[in-house]
């Protein structure tokens, strides 16, 4: 074993008990995470020494928690088991994976069907007495927040596994949720808390710039990343998401270059070219409304015809029967207008209603903030008859259209199914959607909405 004090430039992985070249290799694989890795290494100590029974690492998504753990354990060749709690739909899978990684498949096959924690600990102890740990064994649990949804005993037991199996084992929990939300009612063994801070803008720039395409210069790519961060940084700091966006939009960025319109150094022109494009990506790709394949197709289409490209959020292509549209409009009005105002909106001779009386503006919060209110069927039909131009008979066809609107989840039924005489509904569509619908039937809905008077 070699004792090394690392003072090499760019490494803060110092004074740990591994070979220098290995540590350098580790450091190269985790840009901007040397401080955290160094901290972890010093907590883990030398392989044969005991480590703290449980360590809880939290930090935002894509802040390198799993990556750092993975690289450290792999490069330094420490015995470990990595378990993703998403994959482990049952605890059996979890136990199996741990036993498999530590003791081989013979041990894993000893587990009975639907094993309990007791079985797991028994087999672990039995195996461990045959092959005691010469080095600390690590169990890494990714997405540990899911452990809360399993058996209530699992998390407290894992936290003190070292004590239960009497082996040199350390549990490392990774999560993006803070520890306070994990603590069970009667408390448990408290793990060491370690925070992985988010990458700063400079660090993001540095990391993203590493993925540059070999046929372009580093400055060119990093200016692209700069522009990308300028658009997305205020909304999203998730490295993985940014990387995805960067990869998708780079070809568009290079286009003017390939056509020979601008030089690589002309950042301003390049920015002018890409900026609206990135804004569009924010409305579509970022929201996952189109897949990356669709996005590429859309980009090609756009070159041919400059049609407006829109994501699903635009809600333009919902085809409804004529009366259904009016039913939906009526439902919207019923949900967002107070019932007492119906007289004013829908009666031709509603007599004199004082304007001051009518507009009780002391009802400060508008209905569009509070959400739709439930309404009875009668009111829906009454409004429907008055908004639709011609006379409609209350036939079965109308009623069946209501229920198909419910099936389409444009309306929701609030009352119980067994209440046949006076069912209640709520309108479940957004303002934009209903405006688009009413435009198709030439109905000015805003005039009928109490909030917009």
């Amino acid at each position, binding site marked *: 074993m070699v004792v090394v004090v690392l003072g090499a430039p760019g490494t803060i992985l110092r004074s740990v008990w591994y070979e220098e070249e290995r540590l350098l290799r580790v450091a190269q694989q985790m840009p901007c995470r040397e401080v955290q890795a160094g901290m972890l290494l*010093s*907590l883990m100590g030398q392989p044969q020494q005991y480590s703290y029974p449980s360590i809880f690492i939290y930090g935002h998504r894509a802040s390198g928690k799993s990556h750092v753990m993975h690289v450290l354990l792999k490069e330094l060749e420490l015995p470990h088991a990595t378990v993703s709690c998403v994959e482990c739909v049952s605890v059996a899978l979890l136990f199996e994976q741990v036993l498999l990684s530590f003791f081989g498949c013979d041990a894993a096959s000893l587990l009975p069907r639907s094993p309990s924690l007791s079985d797991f600990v028994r087999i672990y102890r039995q195996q461990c007495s045959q092959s005691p740990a010469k080095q600390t064994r690590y169990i890494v649990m990714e997405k540990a927040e899911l452990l809360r949804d399993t058996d209530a005993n699992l998390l407290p037991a894992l936290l003190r596994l070292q004590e239960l199996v009497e082996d040199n084992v350390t549990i490392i929990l990774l999560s993006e949720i803070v520890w306070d939300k994990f603590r069970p009612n009667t408390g448990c063994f*408290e793990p060491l808390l370690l925070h992985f801070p988010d990458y700063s803008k400079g660090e993001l720039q540095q990391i993203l710039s590493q993925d540059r395409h070999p046929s372009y210069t580093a400055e060119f790519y990093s200016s692209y990343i700069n522009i990308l961060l300028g658009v997305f940084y205020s909304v999203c700091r998730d490295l993985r998401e940014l990387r995805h966006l960067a990869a998708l939009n780079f070809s568009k960025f290079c286009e003017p270059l390939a056509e020979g319109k601008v030089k690589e150094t002309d950042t301003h022109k390049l920015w002018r070219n890409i900026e609206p494009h990135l804004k569009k990506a*924010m409305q579509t790709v970022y929201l996952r409304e189109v897949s990356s394949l669709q996005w590429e197709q859309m980009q090609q289409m756009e070159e041919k015809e400059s049609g407006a490209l829109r994501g699903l959020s635009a809600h333009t292509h919902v085809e409804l029967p004529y009366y259904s549209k009016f039913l939906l409009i009526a439902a919207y009005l019923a949900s967002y207008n107070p019932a007492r105002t119906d007289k004013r909106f829908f009666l031709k001779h509603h007599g004199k209603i004082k304007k001051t009386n009518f507009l009780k503006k002391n009802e400060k919060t508008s209905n569009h903030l509070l959400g739709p209110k439930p309404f009875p069927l009668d009111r829906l039909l009454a409004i429907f008859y008055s908004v639709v131009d011609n006379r409609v008979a209350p036939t079965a066809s109308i009623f069946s259209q209501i229920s198909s609107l419910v099936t389409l989840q444009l309306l929701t039924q609030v009352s119980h199914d067994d209440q046949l005489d006076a069912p209640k509904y709520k309108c*479940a569509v957004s303002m934009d959607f209903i405006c688009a619908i009413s435009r198709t039937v030439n109905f000015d809905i805003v005039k009928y909405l109490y909030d917009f008077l």
Partner: protein
Amino acid sequence: MSKRKLTDAHLPVGECITQVQEILRERLCCQKLPDRPEGVEAQHKHLLELLKRTAVHGESNSVLIVGPRGAGKTMLLKCVLRDLLEDKEVQKNLLQVHLNGLLQTDDRIALKEITRQLHLENAVGDKVFGSFAENLAFLLEALKKGDRSSSRPVLFVLDEFDLFAHHKNQTLLYNLFDVSQSAQAPIAVVGITCRLDVLELLEKRVKSRFSHRQIHLLSSLTFPQYLERVRTQLSLPDDFPDGKFAEDWNASVKTLCEDKSVEDVLQRHFNSSKDARSMHMLLMFCLSRVSVSRPAIKPADLLEASRLCFADAKANMLHGLSILELCLIIAMKHLNDVYEGEPFNLQMVHNEFKKFLQRKSNSMYNFDQPVIMKAFEHLQQLELIRPVDSSSAKIQREYQLMRLMIDHSQIMEALQKYPQCPTDVKQWAMSAFG
């Protein structure tokens, strides 16, 4: 590397540090037993006496050890067992069964575990038992048979005792206490729990069979004692291979404990909790900073460790939010101020945010509703906001009522640390009215 004990040999610093790490880590991480339990001598004597009576004289007993987490309940029991087993007679005679409420989650599993720990799998074989009591009686009966005329004493240790009370009908507890009451086989039942109200959990028939002996471990530690304990935890034993190094180390630990700033930090820790576990956590952070280049714990190390221990996790998480998400949080804070903690929904938050944008006439943060929705959902994912009722099936997402799970002071603290926070956002957060 030889680890043989050499008296007064001078080892290289690297070797010494390795030794220090090894010794202290055993203490802090794997809870190595001290030679003598400190501060709980009376309880130690009581428990030892009690178990001795079972082990030697074949008396049945039941006792509960009650104390908060990290008070040293398990340590006490282990010390007692260690002292008890020094007796050769006892060592040969006493059988131990260790159960843990976390592992043995129902009585069937517990019984299987008891059978295994008593090495009676062969005796039980394929027998089918009518009831739990019958099974347990058989197990204890099996212990009677053998070369000795009387049965061997069995010690049952039930860790996390309160969890056993949740088992169906409390069959295990009922039977164990019943055996310990009636003069069947000599058994001692020791329960360990952190719940003071544990007796309330027991059914009447179980409670009446319990001896009502309780050993309380309520720490009455004073600050000087706490300080002393920190010092002993960090000190090296006399049989450390390199005598000179150990001397220096112990001296440096002593000066460390006398440092004013260190004392302040420890006082703060003492005030928040004085149990051993949280102290170990603090010292573990200190220890991890010890290396060849810094072969002693400096006051600065302790200060840094304390900073890590007291770091506010939620403020840390707020630091990593995007500007948009932070703006939403501020809008929620204002809504909470105005409506006195009433729940809010996305529309209200968005409206509040729009009001801010209108005043600023700054188009920089003009985002579409879906982008805001995504940010809002991210906050929900991080559990910084939580839906009021979980049945969200019938409510549109933008009208789902939410509550903010962060304190105002945490928001303000995070804002101070937030990198490149725009001034107008900061002012908006500071202003009393959104």
